[in-house]
């Protein structure tokens, strides 16, 4: 197959200037492929190497050792997605995208939006696949070819002797939709980053927290509102087997003066929205066991361990009190661990309000406290991000539509015969398209062939 740089759409572009060389490099598909490959490799590194934003540094140290970790840190591989290398790569992708859209895609879209971009015989001859046949008559062949291609599912456009056979017309929208989607995504992300804020708070029932006091990423433009959030209630729904099915938190949002703005419930997969802020149930756990030891209240912090929550409290130099709770309403199991005994010994199982005497100590179980983890977010860029998702999705769908375009022209020669030139520009599904174009050329040859000059090597 003959490979030439000229394509029908490029033929309609203005002539290249010397200074436009760098623009051509920036707009090139080759650069796109290089940048996407680099981005792929960097993302692969980020996926494989645990990132400091998600992993405890001690885990990284354990995994890679001190020297290995310093090398990874030096190369910026422990924070790949925020490293200058990654950000510059993303920036270059967008520069490439912008230049390509402006210099390559815009003329193509313009050409597409015109009634039809017919090509002359000479222009068709410059296409990567082209063939030329000389025939006696033009009109009768035009009609025959017209009918034949229609039967094969092609739509046919004609302008005098020029013809375009087209199939899968929406296929060309893939690149414009995807490119537009990426620009819209960038806009949405920038708006979110500039004006949005988010944060997480751990609340116990009845606790109120001021927004500015909470750990939060403050917006670059604007400030955090002076709202207050109260956790009114918190509960857990369980399966019959005892495993958690859902966690619920009742919330009230108050303004600075303590007036109620809204109240509602959030659970996992069902955020509560008020005043443009979304509240998510991000965590739910038993945070402490409340005991009374000889009349003195005591709170033992709990940590999740298997399906239970466990807390340890030193009672004496060689004695540990271990409390284990399964659920908020379930009894607490109390163990004693002495230095000389290898295993902790269960000495009491108490329901809420129950007491136990271990001479000379009286222990009362006052219940377990719950901590509800609430994530909140104000994200004005989200609708734009969602719009970009729709565009990206549309672009990806259009990719799967093979798009075939075959150009033909019958020009009268000085000898009175007609030169039928057919050609195509095979990109997607090249084999099938070339086969169609070859079939068309063969049909013409078969019909009334006087002289055949195949340009295809």
């Amino acid at each position, binding site marked *: 197959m003959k490979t030439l740089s000229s394509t029908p759409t490029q033929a309609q572009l203005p002539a290249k200037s010397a200074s436009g060389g760098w623009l051509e490099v920036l707009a090139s*598909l080759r650069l796109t492929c290089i940048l996407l490959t680099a981005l792929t490799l960097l993302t*692969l590194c980020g*996926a*494989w190497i*645990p990132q400091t934003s998600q992993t405890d540094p001690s885990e990284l140290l354990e995994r890679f050792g001190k020297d290995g970790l310093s090398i990874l840190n030096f190369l910026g591989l422990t924070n790949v*997605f925020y490293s200058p290398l990654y950000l510059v790569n993303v920036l270059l992708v967008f520069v490439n995208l912008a230049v390509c859209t402006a210099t390559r895609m815009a003329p193509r879209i313009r050409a597409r939006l015109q009634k039809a971009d017919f090509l002359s015989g000479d222009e068709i001859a410059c296409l990567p696949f082209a063939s030329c046949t000389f025939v006696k008559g033009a009109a009768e062949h035009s009609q025959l070819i017209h009918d034949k291609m229609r039967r094969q599912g092609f739509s046919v456009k004609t302008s005098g002797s020029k013809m375009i056979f087209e199939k899968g017309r929406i296929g060309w929208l893939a690149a414009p939709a995807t490119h537009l989607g990426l620009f819209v995504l960038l806009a949405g992300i920038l708006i979110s980053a500039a004006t949005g804020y988010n944060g997480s708070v751990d609340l116990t029932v009845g606790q109120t927290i001021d927004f500015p006091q909470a750990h939060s990423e403050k917006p670059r433009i604007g400030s955090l509102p002076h709202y207050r959030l109260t956790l009114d209630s918190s509960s857990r729904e369980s399966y019959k087997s005892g495993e958690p*099915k859902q966690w619920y938190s009742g919330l009230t949002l108050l303004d600075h003066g303590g007036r109620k703005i809204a109240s509602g419930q959030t659970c996992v997969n069902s955020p509560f929205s008020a005043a443009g802020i979304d509240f998510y149930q991000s965590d739910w756990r038993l945070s402490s066991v409340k005991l009374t030891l000889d009349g003195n209240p005591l709170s033992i912090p709990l940590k999740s361990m298997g399906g239970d929550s466990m807390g340890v409290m030193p009672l004496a130099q060689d004695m540990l009190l271990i409390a284990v709770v399964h659920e908020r309403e379930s009894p607490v199991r109390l163990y004693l661990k002495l230095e000389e005994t290898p295993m902790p010994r269960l000495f009491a199982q108490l329901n809420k309000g129950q007491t136990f005497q271990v001479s000379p100590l009286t222990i009362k179980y006052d219940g377990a406290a719950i901590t509800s983890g609430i994530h909140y977010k104000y994200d004005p860029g989200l609708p734009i991000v*969602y719009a970009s998702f729709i565009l990206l999705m549309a672009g990806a769908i259009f*990719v799967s539509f093979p798009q075939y375009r075959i150009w033909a022209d019958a020009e009268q020669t000085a000898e009175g015969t007609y030169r039928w030139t057919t050609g195509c520009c095979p990109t997607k599904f090249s084999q099938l398209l070339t086969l169609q174009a070859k079939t068309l050329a063969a049909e013409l040859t078969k019909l009334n062939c006087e002289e055949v000059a195949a340009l295809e090597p």
Partner: protein
Amino acid sequence: MSLEMTMTNTAGISSILSLWLFILSGMFGRVKTAMTRLAFLAFIICFASVSGAILFRTMEAARFPFANLYESLLLFAWGILAAYLLLNGKYKIANLGWLVSLMVSSIFLFASWLPSTQKEIVPLMPALVSNWRAIHVPPLIVSYGLLILGGIMAMVYLWEADRRKTAFSCAATTAVSIISAGGGTMHTIPSFYLQVFFWGGTAVCLIITGLCLKSELSKPVPENKQVALYDEVSQRCITIAFPLLTFGIITGALWANHAWGTYWAWDPKESMSLVTWLSYATYLHQRARLNCRDDVMSVWAVVGLLLTLLTYLGFNFLGFGGLHAYGKIS
């Protein structure tokens, strides 16, 4: 035995039966047509059974399935079977039926080997109790099936296009990644060694593949309609899978935003799906270039296959953490 398990076993047995029938059809020329028809019959029984197994599991669990590895493997097999049946309808690639049967029977053998805890219907954790699961998971798993099928077709193309050394090394690279992921299911090999074997082995094999391809680039591609067809089928699989993959990633982002308030958290599996998406986006851009070579693109499709395997199975088996740990074998 439950109805769902009976259907799964029927699917597994019929996939093995179709494999043998496809092989026999190639060995005995005189009864080839009859054997191929029988193989297809077994293939269709397999497809119907796995569809039934998914349906009965849904009814038994009273929820949408695909919440663990075993359930996703059923859908993975279903996706491959459906894709092959559709592609065969359009491109007539019955001669590759044995390859698809081999893939599907391997999936069923792997699924049957999984511990019983995977096969039991267990309550879902709160994060998975969402309709988003039914929207996010199926397109992703079906896209994985199609992308892997596309990679296999690319290897067949390389073989038929007289790039035998390249085809061999592509197959060896795939074998290395499957073996290392398989090693991860044993729980006996430390994940560090598995990762070294995976990355090291794959890298070495890919370098060898590159060298083989370089040495075979000058060879002419046989002027054969069948050869062009394999390239076409491989490309078709990828162009159909790409929108499904995009849809899966986007719905995952929407779900994450709905559940956790962030649509992208650079979780290892999320990042890996982006890697796969980027690699296929590059593939499609390369295909848009006028002078792209079909043999180079076929090797690219095999690299995509490796990345897809890594995204689907590798990240759970090779000891990577993240929010998608429910795909792990505990």
